[in-house]
Structures are given as C-alpha cells and as structure tokens.
C-alpha cells in the first residue's frame, strides 16, 4: 500500500516538512555536541537532544503524513516515541553509573565525588544556604 505525497494539501505538506527538518536538525545538533564536548559526563547530555525532540519531530511528521495521506487516523508512531522516551534515561543512567564505577576504581581526575567522604569534608548545615 503506497500513499503518494502528491495527494496532500499544501498546509499539511508544510507541516510535515517543518517537523521533519526540526527533528533532523535537533538530531544533528545533538551529534555535534556529542563530538565537541570535552568530558564524558558532559558528552552524556548531548545525544538526549536527538532522542527527545529528534524522535518527537520525526514521529509527529510521520503521523501527520500518513493520517492525511490515508485519510484515517494513524498513530502507531506513538509506540516508538514512548518506548524511546522511557528507555533513554534508563540507558544513560546505567552508562553513567558504569562510567562512575570505572573512574572511581581507576582513580582518575575530574570524577564527581561521593558524599559522605569524611566528617571534615562533609558540607555542614550552617554552610548550606538552602537549609534554613
């Protein structure tokens, strides 16, 4: 079953093109940030741009296209969207914990430290401006 693009009206085609380009551009920006950021814990944040609105934009474009072209409601792209939205934090949290474990056993520099370390390094309550 082929749904050709020439059946669509102009506003729907513009909406599909807008969401496609939005999603692809966000995925590209996420990849560039992933290449350029200096440390691992900063690089972890960049690809989430592609997995949140990159996925969202392209799935929205696909839903609009197939709903308009087949003139019936097509929403099965929500399946991939919710699945990726749920699984991306899980994978990144697992990877961050694994990287922390590896960095702490290797005793490398620039690792986020763990509280409580010792009684003299622990942040005291009267130093903390948040705790009134």
């Amino acid at each position, binding site marked *: *079953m*082929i*749904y*050709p*693009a*020439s059946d*669509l*009206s*102009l506003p*729907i*085609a*513009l909406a*599909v*093109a*807008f969401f*496609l*380009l939005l*999603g*692809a*551009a966000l*995925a*590209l920006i*996420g*990849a*560039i940030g*992933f*290449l350029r950021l200096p440390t*691992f814990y900063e*690089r*972890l944040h960049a*690809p989430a741009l*592609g*997995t949140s609105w*990159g*996925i969202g934009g*392209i*799935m929205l*474009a*696909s839903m609009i*296209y*197939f709903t308009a*072209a087949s003139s019936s409601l*097509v929403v*099965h*792209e929500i*399946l*991939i969207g919710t*699945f*990726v939205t749920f*699984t991306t934090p*899980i*994978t*990144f949290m*697992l*990877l961050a*914990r*694994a*990287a922390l*474990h*590896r960095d702490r056993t290797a005793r490398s520099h620039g690792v986020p430290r763990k509280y409580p370390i010792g009684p003299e390094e622990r942040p005291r309550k009267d130093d903390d401006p948040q705790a009134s």
Partner: protein
Amino acid sequence: MSAVIIYTAVAIAQFMLVVAMAIAAVRMFRGPRAQDRIIGLDTIYINAMLLLVTFGIGTGRMIYFEAASVIGLLGFVSTVALAKFLMRGEVIE
C-alpha cells in the same frame, strides 16, 4: 507542489541524519574510553531509526515503521547489556 516540498524536506533530513551518524561514528572510533564508544553506538542506532522513518515518509509506505521499531528494541537491549558488562565485567551472572 506539495510533493516537491515533502521530497525536498525528506532529502535534507536524510542528509542531516547521515551526517549525524558519521559524527557519532567518528566519536565511536576516537572515543577515549569504552563508555564513549557505547554512547556513540547508541546515537548511531537512534539516528538509523530516524533515517528509516524518514525513508518511509519519502516512499509513502508504512512497512519501514516495523523495521524502525525492531531497531529501537534491539538497540535498547544491546546498550543495557554493554553497560552491564562495563559495570560488572560480565553480562549474565
């Protein structure tokens, strides 16, 4: 007119996604440690999934959606297995 708009947008989006995959592959080959390579692989499969959905819009077929969902499922499982391997040194204990 609408076909021209959609085909141009699909071509530009596919070009952007391929460039994103190439950049993630550069980080995967260059990455200083193993966790960088795993996130590079993760970014590559997400972008491949988006590329398949974009290809489905360009050809007007819904079949590519199933392939994209399979890529998403298997990519999640593989990334979790690799993270578990980094954490423990083995996948199934």
